[in-house]
Structure formats: C-alpha cells, structure tokens
C-alpha cells in the first residue's frame, strides 16, 4: 500500500478509514449519552398528573343560583416528595337536584376564575373571559366551557374528581 498519496484525487484509504472511525465513534458516544439524556430530561413529564376524589361538602348547604367557592386539597406524590396539592372549584345545585361542579381553571390560559354573584357570571382576571352559570363562555378568549367535574356521593357528602 503506497503511503504518500496526498495530492491524488483518489481518497487516501487510511484517511478515509480514520474519518469514518472518528464520526462513528463520536456519533456512538454522543448517542450513548445523548439519547438517555433526552429521555431523562423528559422524565415523567408526559405522565398523567395526580387525581383524587375530594370533599365538596354536604348537599343541603348548596343553592341553585349561587355558587359555593370550595378550596380543596389532597396528598399526592410530586416527583420525589409527598405534597399537598391544592385547587379551587365552584359548586351549585342544578334544576334536577344534581350538582354542578366546575373546576375554577379558566380554559384559556389557566388562571383561576372568580364567581361574581351580583353579575351571575364567572370572570377571569387574566384576559377578561366570562362564563355563565352553566360554565358556557359568554365572551372573551376562552375556547371551551369550564371543565365540569365528575361527582359522587360518599356517606351523604358530595365529592368531586379533580
């Protein structure tokens, strides 16, 4: 094998092998660390969040035209810690006696809405979205109605799934 072929148009075989070896080894090293690294960075992000049944309250204290403001909390695991998850929901009695429980999270960009009794509507302080007593959007940027939560009765007390 000739050693000195530096100016010939034919690629020097040793250089070619070295180049391939360099790139393969580098790609291998980068991939060996990089792929698990990317998976690591994502971690449990794509898993579903913590859900739980929380106490809303006794049904006899609810009314049909006024929403009750309920702050809930439950214990859950967040990454490496057990934490108390908190949130807000609103509840009222429907015409048929069933409970309407709405998550207070605005469907636009996630702020907590407040119930305005004198105006009979929910108002979001962030971008002026408004919802009616059925959670439907009256005006503003929210794209969907307020999320209605699943409910159940447990020992005479109303619970909602958050």
């Amino acid at each position, binding site marked *: 094998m000739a050693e000195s072929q530096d100016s010939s148009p034919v690629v020097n075989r040793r250089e070619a092998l070295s180049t391939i070896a360099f790139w393969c080894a580098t790609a291998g090293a980068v991939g060996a660390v990089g792929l698990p690294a990317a998976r690591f*960075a*994502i*971690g*449990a*992000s*794509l*898993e*579903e*969040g*913590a859900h739980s049944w929380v106490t809303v309250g006794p049904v006899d204290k609810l009314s049909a035209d006024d929403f009750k*403001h309920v*702050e*809930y*909390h439950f214990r859950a695991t*967040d*990454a*490496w*810690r057990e*934490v108390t*998850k*908190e*949130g*807000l929901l609103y509840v009222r009695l429907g015409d048929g006696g069933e409970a309407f429980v709405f998550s*207070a999270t605005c469907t*636009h*960009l*996630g*702020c*907590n*809405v*407040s119930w305005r009794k004198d105006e009979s509507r929910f108002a979001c*302080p*962030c*971008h*002026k979205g408004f919802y009616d007593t059925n959670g439907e*959007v009256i*005006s*503003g*940027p*929210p*794209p969907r109605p307020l999320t209605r939560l699943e409910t159940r009765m447990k020992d005479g007390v109303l619970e909602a799934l958050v």
Partner: protein
Amino acid sequence: MKTVLTWLNDRAGWNGPIRSLMKYPVPAHAHHNPMFSMGSLLVILFLLQAVTGMLMAFYYDPSPEGAYGSVDYIQFTLKYGWLVRGIHHWAASLMIILVVLHLLRTYLYGAYKRPRELTWLFGVGLFFVVVSFGFTGYLLPWDQKGYWATQVGTEIAGSVPLMGDWLRSVMRGGEEMGIATLTRFYATHMLVLPAAFVMLSAAHIALMRRNKLAPALIRKSDEPENTVPFYPTHLAIEAVIALAVVLGLIFAANQFPAPLDLRADPSDSTFVPRPDWYFLFYFQLLKYFPGDLEAVATVLIPLFFFGSLALLPFLDKGAERRPWRKPITSGAFVVYAAAVIILTILGAR
C-alpha cells in the same frame, strides 16, 4: 511586574493574540456614538448577572416549599442581600432594554446585510436567550406573580397545535405545575441559558471582529475612516458608561427594592396575574384573539415576529443601508414599535 509578564508570555505565548484583541481599530463613527456601546454593555451586564446570580445560589432553595423563604431571607435578612438581588432584578430589565436598543441600532443601520448575516442570526438567537432568561427567572421566588405568570406562559405553549400538550408537559415537568417545574426552570436559568449565552456571544463577537463594523452610513469622503485603538481609547468610554450603569443599578436597588409578592397559592382566585413589563404587550394582544383564534396569537404571531427577524438579511438583500432610503424596513420598524408601545401601555392599565 515586567518579569512576571515576560515569564507568563513565555509560557502562554498570549502577547500576540491579546495585542490584536486590544489594539483592534474601532472606526470613529462607532467610537463617538454611544449606541455602538450597547453590545459591550450587554456583556458587562451578563457578567454582573452571573456574579449576582452565583451569589444568590449560595442561599436559594429551588423547591416550592423552600424557594419563597430563601428569597425572603436573601431580600430582608442577609447582609447586602437587598443589593445583590436588587442589582439582579434591575439589571435584568436593563438587559432587555439594551438588547432591544442594540437590535434596533443594527436594524436601522442595515448592519445585517452581507457579509454580516451570520452575526445577525446569532444576535437573534441571543435575543431569544435574553428573553428566556427573564421568563425562567421570574418563577424562581415561587411567589404569586411568578407562579401565575408561568402557569399562563406554559399554557400558551400548550396551545400550539399538534405539539402543544407535549410542549406544556415537558416545560412543566408534568401535567400541572409542581416540584419538577421549579427545578427545570432553575437548571435552565442557571446552567443551560448561560452556556448558550456564552457560546452565542463568543460566535457573535468573533464574527463581528472578522467582518469588522459596518461602515458609517454617511461618509464625507472616500478616504478610509479614522480609527482609535480598542484599548485604551474606546474602552475608556465604555468603562465610564459601565461605571455609570453599575452606580445606577446600586442606586435603583437601594431606592426601589426588588419586589417580592405573597407566597404562591394555586387555589387563590383573587390574585390578578400579570407578566413582567416586557411581556405586557403580548398579554394585551392575547385578549384580542378569542376562542378558536387563540392559536393565531400564541403561534402565528410569535413565529412571524421571530421568523421575520431571522429572515431579515435574506429578505432585504439590497446594498442600500440608509434608513431614509428604505421605506419598507423603516416603515416596518415604525409599525412594530408603535404596536408594541401602545399594547404595552394598554396592558399596564
């Protein structure tokens, strides 16, 4: 002293490279115009942020439970904590202002044209990095302001079609805001973004030096411009400006202490979330795109904005650089600036 320097030069051989760095000829039109010092000021501000940030990291606790207490401790109990945090707070806002001024100066001077397109592209990247610094840093005290601004900011990411949910979950480290949100924002703010800033700046400055500053817009004659050496002549002016800025930041930290809102409360419905001032224009803009049009404001407009910035050197290829001879780019500047200013004022009300 001379013996030490000779010894060092003999070992490191750095006299040559340092000399060429320091003796770089700065054109007169740049030397006399403070608008040409924005870049250096940004480097100095970054160093200031790095130092104050590192100092705060000695005490900051990046967990939802401990973050607020640690920032409260820094601000109100630690000796000179108000100064370190105050400088960090005001320098952050100043960096945003200067990055915009620097961008505008380059834009209006047409200094993004051949052969400086690559410098401009790295600059757009740096702009994005600086704004990201603001966004990630805002959450760290885990107070009402930071928590809700991030809740909204990540929801905006969530409204991107197709990848929205994935993006939001990865940004939050989960479905909801929690422990993993704070740690990844902290890691990004402290490690990823500074590394990106250093690498992009190094490339940006190297390219700027290689291609030299764009010639003055108006030239009295065809003779080559007068120049002054970077060190000590031009640096003297920049050092004085830097000193004024540092003193100004110390004054600001003292007279207007960095704010700390109440602790974050995810179940609170009384707090009115607002982003930091440099996002107010966007906050206002979002109000105009109801329901299905949401994606226009959260995807199309930002894409258009950054896209048009990045593509600028390839859209405006002509040799003409004087702004009064370029109605389209000058007109676009007026429209963008007016829109941002008006939206900011409306958003602040």
